[in-house]
């Protein structure tokens, strides 16, 4: 036991050293674990057949139904980003709100929340907003600290506002943890679905957006010079209603359909993610068609979008199940009409693909979606080898004993876990922490009495804060990378501090009032 404990700790330390050397995280996790696995075999602490189960675990990830939503949401995000739909959203919102004092700040927070709900990719959101909004905000006389802090904080909303990709991964990890915990305490094995976590994150996410807005309003009132109202430049024509509907309304509609169908229990997250990806493709086609002089394609794609509404309306009105014995005439007609609408919808998808190809964005978008997906899943593959060896050494039992012996029961163990995750968040991103740390710490915490959904939301808020905390916060790195010259790093750090305060307030609020996270999931059931 002693030797195993030393080796488990040595493995953890070696992984951290390897990570700091800068080799890709996924491969470092797996490679270091394998070396320690071979040491364990030599010392007869781990058996070779145990290591040989590894390919079977990879197969398990390949067959994981929950995670199918990940590539689809990633594709939705990259398509919206590549086709400038995300960019238009920010432009329109900031021009609508520019006249109000502090309006650009509100626009950044609101668009950050919307982009979070549509793309969920922190790096992309922060970079997009930094490139578009930051120069304007600075030109209009915004305090650089306030401007950069607002952009970085709004960019991290992608983690907590559904349909966040990391919430899907977290749902899978927490659900497994909950099952292994309930076998130990002989409780009812409740699974935690992706829908549960999305519902659980919605209220805390929206409250957090409210906090951000209140902070900006307070700033505009108390320090008017920090957030002035913006003046439109001479050449800008006023927005037409059509522009507003297309650039603001269309993404809003897509988000509403995707989130609404998950939270309303109409579609599974995987099904909704397919709608999201298909819808994003249609929006991209509509957005890019005029530039390519493909007006006919644009009208056809609009018809395809309308087809989707026809399908939804028909299936709401009629029972079109083909498995019934005799189908009434009206339903037969509905089946034919919806079939036609489905065909138009798919042809519109291909028309959009053609528009994107013409704009040279189709293959690049799919390529970037494929590579982001590969990045996520290689971490899963590497982390599963790490967990395998770590458990081979009894590392999970060691962690469990440690968490049980922390004074203060659940609250003490929770505080320790949160602190460790917060520090790990400085050099690991959310995905790695979900795959490596959550499977180890979540079962003992659930055994100590933590509600799995509540625990997951606290972890998500905690990591979101970590990404915002200087000097290592990821969001700050992205902002630094995309910010114009003349923006001081120290200003970026100072600007983040008030938002870190708001985040901590939110964490304490959810900790004190678990209902914020657990009420909506329970209500949905």
């Amino acid at each position, binding site marked *: 036991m002693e030797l195993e404990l030393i080796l488990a700790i040595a493995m953890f330390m070696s992984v951290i050293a390897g990570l700091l050397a800068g080799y890709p995280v996924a491969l470092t996790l797996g490679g270091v674990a394998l070396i320690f696995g071979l040491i364990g075999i030599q010392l007869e602490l781990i058996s070779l057949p145990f*290591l040989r189960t590894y390919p079977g675990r990879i197969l398990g990830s390949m067959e994981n139904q929950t995670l199918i939503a990940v590539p689809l949401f990633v594709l939705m995000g990259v398509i919206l980003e590549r086709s400038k739909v995300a960019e238009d959203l920010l432009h329109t919102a900031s021009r609508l709100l520019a006249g109000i004092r502090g309006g650009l700040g509100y626009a950044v927070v609101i668009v950050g929340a919307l982009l979070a709900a549509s793309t969920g990719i922190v790096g992309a959101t922060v970079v997009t907003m930094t490139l578009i909004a930051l120069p304007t905000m600075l030109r209009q006389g915004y305090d650089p600290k306030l401007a950069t802090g607002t952009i970085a904080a709004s960019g991290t909303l992608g983690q907590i506002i559904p349909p966040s*990709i990391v919430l899907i991964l977290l749902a899978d990890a927490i659900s497994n943890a909950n099952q292994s915990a309930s076998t130990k305490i002989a409780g009812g094995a409740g699974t935690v679905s992706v829908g549960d976590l999305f519902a659980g994150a919605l209220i805390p996410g929206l409250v957090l957006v409210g906090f951000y807005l209140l902070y900006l309003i307070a700033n505009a009132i108390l320090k008017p010079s920090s957030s002035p109202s913006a003046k439109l430049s001479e050449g800008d024509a006023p927005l037409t209603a059509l522009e507003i509907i297309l650039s603001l309304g269309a993404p809003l509609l897509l988000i509403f359909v995707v989130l609404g169908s998950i939270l309303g229990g109409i579609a599974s997250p995987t099904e909704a993610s397919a709608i999201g*990806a298909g819808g994003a493709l249609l929006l991209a086609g509509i957005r890019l068609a005029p530039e390519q002089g493909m007006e006919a394609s644009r009208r056809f794609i609009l018809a395809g979008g309308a087809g989707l509404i026809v399908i939804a309306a028909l299936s709401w009105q009629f029972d*079109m*199940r083909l498995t019934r014995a005799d189908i009434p005439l009206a339903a037969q007609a509905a089946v034919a009409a919806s079939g036609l609408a489905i065909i138009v919808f798919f042809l519109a998808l291909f028309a959009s693909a053609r528009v994107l190809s013409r704009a040279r964005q189709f293959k690049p978008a799919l390529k970037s979606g494929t*590579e982001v*997906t590969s990045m996520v899943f290689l971490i899963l593959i590497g982390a599963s080898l790490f967990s395998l060896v770590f458990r081979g050494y009894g590392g999970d039992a060691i962690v469990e004993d440690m968490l049980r012996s922390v004074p203060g029961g659940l609250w003490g163990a929770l505080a320790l876990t949160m602190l460790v995750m917060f520090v790990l968040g400085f050099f690991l991103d959310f995905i790695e922490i979900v795959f490596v740390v959550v499977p180890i710490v979540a079962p003992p915490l659930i055994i100590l009495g933590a509600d799995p959904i509540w625990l997951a939301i606290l972890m998500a808020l905690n990591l979101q804060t970590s990404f915002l905390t200087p000097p290592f916060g990821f969001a700050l790195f992205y902002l630094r990378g995309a910010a114009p010259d003349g923006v001081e790093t120290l200003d970026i750090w100072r600007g983040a501090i008030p938002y870190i305060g708001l985040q901590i307030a939110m964490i304490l609020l959810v900790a004190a009032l678990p209902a914020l996270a657990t009420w909506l999931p329970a209500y949905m059931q």
Partner: protein
Amino acid sequence: MADFIPILGTTLRWIGVCLLPLGLLPIAILIAPKRFAGISRHLITRLDGLSGFALDIAIGFSFLIILVQLVVLFLSNVYGVAFSWLSDTVIFSFAGIFMLGAAATLRDEGHVRVDILRPRFSDAQRAIVELVGSLGFIWPIGLLILYGGAASLARSWAGLEPFNESDGLPFKYLFKTLIPAFAVLMMAQGLSQALKAARILRGLDEPPSPAATHTVGPA
């Protein structure tokens, strides 16, 4: 057919064993850079091309998964019918995206790294990290996957194992073959990365400019 499969498997294994010494080529470059300059450049082009070929298939799967998942959605939610072979196509595309795309993502610097000390390293230090990681991490993991999965894969091929349901796709053995394909692709790209690092260390190539590398952020 039944006789042919074990012969194919054994042949592939021996081809693999014969190719293993290629892992020494990066070290050979360190010892005699001039002698191996031409062959290593040729090999890098070929290996990067192999990853690119696999990436193109993965990209195809990424479009296919959108279309087929939508078909599944319409069929089940509108018409109340489900076909296992369609769901199998979705899961095949899903796994195909990352099992075939991971190697090219390595080539294109798409896998996340910890960027705390790395910016302060010299080009030579980075090349050493790359060389050690490729041969010390990727190759052992790849060999474990190939070795650990061989027996169950052989059984799957011997029975031409179909997907679980009776109306499922008839080739689960191809789905399971994605695992060794992933291992081989990663080892091939790992070799290519190691060769590039060794060439930089011996001054045969310039290190890539910082602008050419990017990291994918926390999602």
